[in-house]
C-alpha cells in the first residue's frame, strides 16, 4: 500500500517537473522571440529599466566616426530617432566601411548584445555592448542634389551683392576724395 502511494507521489512529482520544464521552455522561447526582434532606440531609452542588462538586437545606421580604442571601439548607431553608442571589439568595428555624414550614407547594421541603462564600465552611459555585428545594408557615398532654382537664386543674389559692394566702395572713394 505504502509502495503504491509512493509510486503515485513520484508520478505526480514527475508530472509537476515536466510542467515546470515545459513552462520554462515556453518562457525562454517567448523571451527569445521578444528580444531577438530589433528594439527601437526610443523604446530602449523610454523603458531603459526594463531592458537593463538584457540581450537585445538593435538596428540602425552607423554615423559619425568609428572610434577605435585599443582592442575595442565605439560606434554610434542611429535608428532615425536617436543614436546609441555601441561598444564592440575593434575587429567587429573594422567591418564597418561607411559611417553616415553629409556626403555618406552609413552602413545599416544589426548589433546583438547587452543593453546597459547606466554602464558601470563606461561612466554611466546608456550603451550596448555588442557580441555580434551584421551589415544589413552597405553604405555609399551620396551625390549632392542641388535644385536649379537654388542655383539661379544664389547667382542673382550674388550679382546684386557684388553690385551693391562696388557702389559702396565707389561712394566711399568719392567721400574720401571730397
Amino acid at each position, binding site marked *: 500500500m505504502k509502495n503504491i502511494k509512493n509510486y503515485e507521489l513520484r508520478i505526480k512529482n514527475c508530472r509537476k517537473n515536466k510542467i515546470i520544464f515545459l513552462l520554462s521552455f515556453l518562457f525562454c522561447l517567448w523571451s527569445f522571440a521578444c528580444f531577438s526582434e530589433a528594439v527601437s532606440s526610443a523604446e530602449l531609452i523610454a523603458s531603459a529599466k526594463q531592458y537593463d542588462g538584457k540581450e537585445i538586437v538593435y538596428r540602425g545606421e552607423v554615423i559619425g566616426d568609428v572610434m577605435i580604442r585599443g582592442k575595442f571601439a565605439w560606434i554610434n548607431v542611429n535608428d532615425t530617432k536617436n543614436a546609441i553608442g555601441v561598444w564592440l571589439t575593434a575587429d567587429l568595428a573594422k567591418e564597418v566601411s561607411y559611417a553616415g555624414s553629409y556626403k555618406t550614407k552609413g552602413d545599416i547594421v544589426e548589433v546583438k548584445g547587452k543593453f546597459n541603462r547606466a554602464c558601470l564600465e563606461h561612466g554611466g552611459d546608456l550603451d550596448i555592448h555588442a557580441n555580434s555585428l551584421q551589415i544589413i545594408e552597405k553604405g555609399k557615398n551620396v551625390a549632392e542634389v542641388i535644385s536649379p532654382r537654388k542655383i539661379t537664386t544664389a547667382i542673382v*543674389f550674388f550679382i546684386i551683392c557684388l553690385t*551693391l559692394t562696388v557702389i559702396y566702395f565707389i561712394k566711399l572713394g568719392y567721400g574720401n576724395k571730397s
Partner: protein
Amino acid sequence: MVLKPHLDDFKIIGYYLGKITIGIGLFMLIPIVCALGFKEVGPAFDFFIGIGVSFLCGFILTKICFTDKDLNWMQGMIVVSLSWLVATIIGAIPLYLSGHFKSYLDACFDAMSGFATTGLALIQDLDHLSYAHNLWRHLIMFVGGQGIVIVALSFFMKGLSGAFKMYVGEARDERVLPNVIHTSRFIWLVSIVFLVLGTLALGITGLLNGMKVHNAFFHGACIFMTAFDTGGFAPQSQSILYYHSMAFEMITVIIMILGAINFKLHYHLWTGNFKELFRNIESRTFFVTVTIIFIIVAIGLDKVGIYQHTLILFRKGFYQLISGHTGTGFQTIYAKQFINGWNQLSLTGIILAMALGGAVCSTTGAIKMLRIGIIMKAVKEDIRRIMLPEKAIVVQRFHHIKNIFLDDKQVRAALLISLCYLLLYAAGALIGMFLGYPFVASLFESTSAAANVGLSCGITNATMPAFLKITYMIQMWAGRLEFMSIFTLLGFLIAAIKGK
C-alpha cells in the same frame, strides 16, 4: 502724456539696424569658406542666398534711413532688441535652405536658440548635416555669446559714443576697460585665445579617442565655441554622449566654467591677480550654489538608484549640474532620461541650477551670481539688523573687483531683475501646462529656455505646438537681453500707437 516718436528716431534705428544686418551677412562668409574647403556645393549656395538677403536688406535700410546722428539711450536699446530679431530671421535662411527643418519657424527657433546661446534645437537628422551648416549653427552661438552688437562695435564702428548704450542693451552693464570699444576688443581677444587653446585641447582628445583628424578638430572648434559661449549646440545629435570620453567631458566642464566667469574677472586673471578669484562675490556664490545644488541632485539620484557607483553618480550628476548652472546645455544623458531615469528631487536641483546661472558680464543667462550674492547679503543685513540693538549701525559690504558697500539701490535692481526672471520661468511653465505637459517637465523646459540653458527633458521637438515654439523663442530673447531693451521696445511701440 506719451510722446509719439519722431521720424528721426525711426531713421536712426533703421540706419544702425541696417549696419548690423550687413554685419550678419559678412559673418556668413566663414561657412562659405568652410563649404568650399569640404567641397560642399549645395550649402555654399545656401549661404550665398543668405548673404544676398542680408546685404540687400542692410543696404536698403542704410540708404533709406541714412543719418549721421548718434544714438540716444532709447534708440540704442531698441536697435539691440530689434537686431536680435533681425539676426534670427536672416540667420535662419541658410539653416532652412539646408532642408533639415520642417518649417521656417523651426529654423528661426534654432537661429534664436543659437544667437541667444540657449541650445534647444528642432533640427532634423543632425547627423547628416553639412560641415558648413554645422559651423554656422556654432558660429551664431559664438557671435550671440559675444553679443551681436559687440561684434558690430568691434569691427564696424569706430569710436562711436552711442556704442555704450548698445553695449548695455545687450545685458552687459559692466566695462572691463574704460573705453567700451576696448572692452569689446578685450572680450574678443580672450575668446580668440581660448578658442585656439580649447580647439587644440578638444581636437587632440578627439584624435586620441579615435576620431578622424578633420572631424576631431572641426568638432573641437564647434564644441569650444558653444561651451565657452555657454550655448550648448553640438555637431552630433547625441551631444557630448557621442564622444564616450571622460577626458572630453572634463575639458568641456573647464571651458563651460571659463565661459560662466565675468569678463572683468578674466581681465584680472590675465593680469595675474589670482586673489580676485577667491575674493569675488560671484565666484564665492557660484561655489556655494554648486555645492548645495549638487548635494540635492546627488541625494535625488541616490534615492532613485540609477547610478550604482559613487563615481558614476558624480560624473553624471555633476556634468548635468555644471552644464545647467553655467547655462550651457550639453548633455551626457538622453533628454527622456531626465524624466524616466531621474526623480523629481534631482530634476528640481537641475532646474534650480539653470534658474541661477553664471556671472554677470559673461555669456550666461539667468538671474546670475552677482544678484544672488547681493540678495543673500541683503537678507543677512536684515537679519543682523533685527538681532542687534536698534541704535546699532549695520553695514554690509561685498567684494566685486573692488570693495563695495551694499545699498538699497543695488538690492532693488537685483530683486527686480530676479523677479522678472522668475515670472518669465513661471509664464513658460504655465503655457506648457496649458498645452498639456506635466508640471515638472514644463518648468524644466521653460527655465531652460528663459535662462538660455538648452538642457531638455524631451518637450522641445519639431512636433511640439507652434505656440510653444514661439513662447520659448520669446523667452530666449527676453532672457538673453535681460528685459530692459525689450521693455524699451514695447514702450516705443506703445508710444508710436498711442502717443501724441
